[in-house]
């Protein structure tokens, strides 16, 4: 009943790294789409946390305007922690993480593809909803745009830094808490410059310096974080 197998060619045609990267990227997006409850929970968490502050503080516009950027940024940071726990944990549980490690494609590139899919399924949603949340803090139009842009630069950075923490804690019990303890301090610079950009815009100052620093950090993280996460994964799976 078994069909003859194709002969083994020493130089078989290969779809190469690009095919593998696309496969991982599409797979993770597809899973995120099929598990909307999980994907949406980080977004709902973000909206609720941000909305609690105006309710708690009351209609003091001056105060709300001043704390708005910081609150939105801290909430984005916490929401991305919430989603990060599952970046590698699910793959580890069902054995697909081992298959990633055994792919001929460099692991760091696969980690980058996974992180990109993760950001598209979590970070982008936070960015898109942020101008709406800015209304609750009476932020002006310009400040709301700057907030949105700063999150657009900052959330991929959070995902990349978080990927290192997720890789280090994969397979551990209580990984969620440990992940936050590891990653949150590392994210402090992102928070400072992200929220700082909005405050500068509110004060009528230029935001170029803040954005340049965020951009520089993003480039550095794009280069280094996948390598660090890949090394951490190899150690975690020993």
């Amino acid at each position, binding site marked *: *009943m*078994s*069909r*003859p*197998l*194709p*002969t*083994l*060619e020493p130089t*078989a*045609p*290969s*779809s*190469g790294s690009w*095919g*593998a990267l*696309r*496969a*991982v990227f599409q*797979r993770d997006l*597809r*899973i995120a789409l*099929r*598990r909307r409850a999980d994907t949406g929970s980080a977004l709902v968490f973000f909206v609720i946390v941000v909305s609690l502050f105006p309710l708690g503080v009351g209609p003091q516009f001056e105060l709300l305007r001043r704390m708005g950027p910081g609150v939105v940024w801290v909430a984005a940071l916490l929401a991305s922690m919430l989603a990060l726990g599952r970046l590698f944990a699910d793959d580890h*549980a*069902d*054995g*697909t993480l*081992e*298959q*990633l*490690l*055994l*792919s*001929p*494609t*460099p692991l760091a590139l696969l980690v980058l593809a996974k992180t990109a899919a993760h950001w598209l399924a979590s970070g982008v949603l936070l960015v898109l909803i942020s101008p709406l949340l800015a209304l609750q803090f009476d932020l002006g139009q310009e400040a709301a745009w700057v907030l949105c842009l700063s999150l657009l630069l900052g959330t991929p950075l959070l995902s990349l830094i978080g990927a290192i923490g997720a890789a280090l804690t994969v397979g551990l019990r209580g990984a969620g808490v440990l992940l936050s303890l590891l990653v949150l301090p590392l994210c402090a610079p992102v928070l400072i410059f992200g929220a700082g950009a909005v405050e500068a815009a509110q004060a009528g100052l230029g935001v170029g310096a803040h954005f340049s620093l965020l951009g520089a950090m993003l480039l550095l993280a794009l280069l280094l974080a996948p390598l660090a996460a890949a090394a951490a994964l190899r150690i975690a*799976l*020993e």
Partner: protein
Amino acid sequence: MPALPTLNDGLELRDLACVRGRRSLFRGLNLRMGPGQLLRVTGPNGAGKTSLLRMLCGLLAPTQGQVLWQGQDVRRAREAFHQQLIYLGHAAALKDELTPLENLQVALRLGGSAPDEAAARLALADAGLRGREMVPSRILSQGQRRRAALARLPLGQALLWVLDEPFNALDTAATAWLLGLIETHLKRGGLVVLTSHQAVALSEGVAQVSLAL
């Protein structure tokens, strides 16, 4: 001591040792196998069979010694080695949210081959999953999950198959199917390493080596 000449077309274990925690599982393991050979690793539970298999794949660093593939350390020449390797572990490595067909296509592309859908469907049908290609993998039974994972074997061009307890949860028909696959793979010059508690009933003339841990 002069260096041993290396085997250029197969797998070689050189003075391999494994320590997990404080327990030494095995040491001084030397072995060579070439094309067309099957290595069956046996031993009681906890003897280190899975650790040995993970070491062969380069997932686990040997405490001592080396694993060589075509003369090169598997942990150095990773990309070339992984091109030639299929490893199936205890877990079936299926995503619950995806269908068996999607899982198979992702696994193949990760392995570096470019699958066409017709071939993937045919492989799943051969594995006994006809009509199940498009259901979420989460509703498959244990045996069906294993079949879906094994469906990857006949596709692709991997020379070395490393299979951890491949016969677990398989029924008689699927066992015969897998035995047939292994035999044809050996006949076309492939190498197979597997762990199994049962004897592997291959036909006469197939080179089979047993390694008891």
